[in-house]
């Protein structure tokens, strides 16, 4: 897409700017005061690019694609679910009348006259669809989950109701499921040595919370390092990433506040928002017009019955959404936030360490000022090879959270070897240990991402998400394909994660690849998805155009 075609509105006018930045229509009247103007005519769906007024906010092209489900595939997927539902009813009938042995959880005879416990769709789906293919999940890993791992082989005598170990171990299975973006999940090297020294100095358990006796000097060092890494005034580290979100949002907002959260936010953000008892409104995924409309409505109408102004408005978004592979439109959100005076909570669980020229996350990727984001949250699980979460922001905010957050007051503080692992890996990424290891890993991750995405796209598979995100969901759509794909890949010694309902919409099942800096090109070349999947749904014309430009 060239810049000129994006700057023109689709009815042929080009964007003309008035002196104060508002857009005019043909006869000179200002259309409306919306910051992000919606195009008037029908756009070709699913090619999401920033339009007209906000093109200037993005320094490099923002290419995301969420190709639509082909109609035939959607029909066949529904048909497949229909057939499996009929067989599910048949099996439930047989179990009810004791014709076949029952393995499932069921109510006791005394409870039969009460409200049924297992009759809803979730339980039906669980016992008739999920259990049939559940040998693709919860596979026991018996080595370091690095670029390659060892799995314990399991067999099942009764179609996945129970499992037994065969005694064999599958060695060197290529690991495309672990969130190991920079390859720090290893048991040798400077991080592991430093963690061993920390264990010998401090032990493993802390035995107290941060507020009582659990505040070690290694925690202080970690927090100062994290604040320096992110470019904020101060930060605080917690022992668990989920608890960071769910326990800190209630400390920040309460009754009388408004939370605007993205459609596809993670369960920890949703739980934290619900626990805070604020009003929650949801905007469409990464859709800035929807967010702006909600902001305008909230400010104009105020709280629901009394119409008083909201105490605060908090916009909650994630850096990279792990099920879609999409990156948040941060420049536009920051422009909106400043215009409407709201606060921004950015959850960089997957993007810290993985995006940006210096690995400093999505703020670095877009080249923005970290001080514009009020609360920067992230986890250490994904790129740093440890566990835990952090929150960074202004000093007053972090001091407030140290006293008022449930996680700080009640949860045990981070274990010292884990904290040391984070300190060492963060220093490597920043380049402060004196080697170029960090820069090499960042570059390798970027190369692997581009190469793998290109490779899968050239095969004609539908890939969701942004071009730069290391999370690559590949669409499978049909329920039987999730199970079959997982098993076939394991036979070829590749371990992947298949995702279906309820984590995704019911017809959009996918397999999710997570590339790592520790993968080499030979490892990625072994992933050869043959034509037997018939998953190559990309529209023929686009596929042909791509191959022609590639071979030119």
């Amino acid at each position, binding site marked *: 897409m060239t810049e000129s075609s994006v700057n023109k509105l689709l009815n042929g006018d080009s964007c003309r700017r008035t002196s104060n930045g508002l857009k005019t229509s043909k006869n000179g009247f200002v259309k409306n005061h919306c910051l992000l103007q919606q195009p008037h005519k029908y756009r070709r769906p699913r090619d999401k690019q920033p339009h007209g007024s906000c093109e200037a906010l993005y320094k490099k092209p923002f290419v995301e694609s969420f190709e639509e489900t082909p109609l035939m595939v959607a029909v066949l997927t529904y048909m497949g679910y229909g057939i499996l539902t009929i067989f599910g009813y048949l099996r439930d009938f047989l179990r009810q009348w004791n014709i076949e042995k029952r393995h499932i959880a069921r109510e006791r005879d005394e409870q039969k006259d009460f409200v049924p416990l297992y009759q809803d769709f979730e339980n039906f789906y669980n016992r008739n669809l999920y259990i049939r293919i559940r040998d693709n999940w919860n596979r026991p890993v018996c080595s370091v989950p690095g670029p390659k791992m060892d799995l314990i082989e399991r067999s099942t005598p009764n179609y996945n109701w129970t499992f037994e170990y065969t005694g064999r171990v599958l060695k060197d299975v290529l690991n495309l499921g672990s969130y190991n973006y920079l390859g720090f999940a290893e048991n040798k090297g400077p991080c592991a040595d430093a963690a061993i020294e920390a264990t010998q100095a401090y032990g493993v358990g802390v035995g107290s919370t941060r507020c009582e006796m659990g505040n070690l000097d290694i925690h202080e060092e970690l927090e100062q390092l994290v604040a320096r890494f992110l470019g904020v005034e101060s930060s605080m580290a917690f022992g668990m990433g989920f608890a960071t979100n769910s326990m800190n949002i209630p400390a920040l907002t309460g009754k009388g506040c408004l939370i605007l959260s993205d459609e596809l936010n993670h369960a920890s953000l949703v739980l934290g928002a619900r626990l805070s008892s604020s009003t929650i409104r949801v905007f469409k995924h990464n859709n800035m017009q929807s967010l702006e409309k909600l902001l305008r409505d909230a400010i104009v109408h105020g709280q629901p019955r009394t119409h008083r102004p909201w105490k605060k408005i908090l916009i909650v978004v994630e850096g990279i959404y792990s099920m879609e592979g999409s990156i948040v439109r941060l420049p536009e959100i920051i422009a909106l936030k400043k215009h409407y005076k709201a606060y921004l909570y950015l959850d960089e669980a997957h993007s810290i360490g993985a995006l940006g020229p210096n690995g400093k996350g999505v703020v670095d990727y877009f080249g923005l000022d970290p001080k514009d984001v009020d609360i920067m949250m992230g986890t250490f699980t994904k790129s740093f090879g440890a566990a835990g979460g952090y929150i960074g922001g202004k000093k007053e905010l972090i001091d407030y959270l140290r006293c008022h957050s449930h996680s700080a007051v009640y949860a045990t503080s981070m274990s010292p070897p884990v904290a040391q692992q984070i300190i060492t890996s963060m220093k490597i990424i920043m380049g402060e240990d004196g080697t170029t290891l960090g820069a090499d890993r960042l570059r390798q991750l970027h190369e692997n991402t581009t190469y793998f995405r290109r490779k899968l796209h050239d095969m004609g598979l539908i890939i969701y998400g942004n071009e730069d995100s290391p999370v690559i969901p590949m669409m499978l759509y049909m329920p039987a394909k999730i199970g079959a794909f997982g098993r076939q890949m394991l036979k070829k010694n590749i371990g992947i994660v298949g995702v279906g309902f309820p984590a995704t919409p019911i017809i959009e099942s996918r397999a999710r690849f997570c590339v790592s800096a520790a993968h080499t090109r030979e490892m990625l070349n072994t992933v050869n998805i043959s034509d037997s999947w*018939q998953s190559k749904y990309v529209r023929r014309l686009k596929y042909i155009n791509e191959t022609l430009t590639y071979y030119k």
Partner: protein
Amino acid sequence: MNFKNLREYLAWLYYQYLLITGIYVLEPWEKSIFNSILFSVIAMVIYTSYVFVPIHVRLALEFFTRMFGGQPESTMTLMT
């Protein structure tokens, strides 16, 4: 994808059928039930079409030729 012989190609087609209809995840006895039902329905459709389609096509052609068959001669005589 190159298939060495017809057998391999048929096995691939059967695998695609299992994946698309979702039968792949079912136990063997459920697969047999579904396959036999589907096979008997298809057999009945083929038999019915074999018995009735030629008769219906012939009747339809007769109907249409009778409706338009008388026309051309009468309009020609009117015009000349």
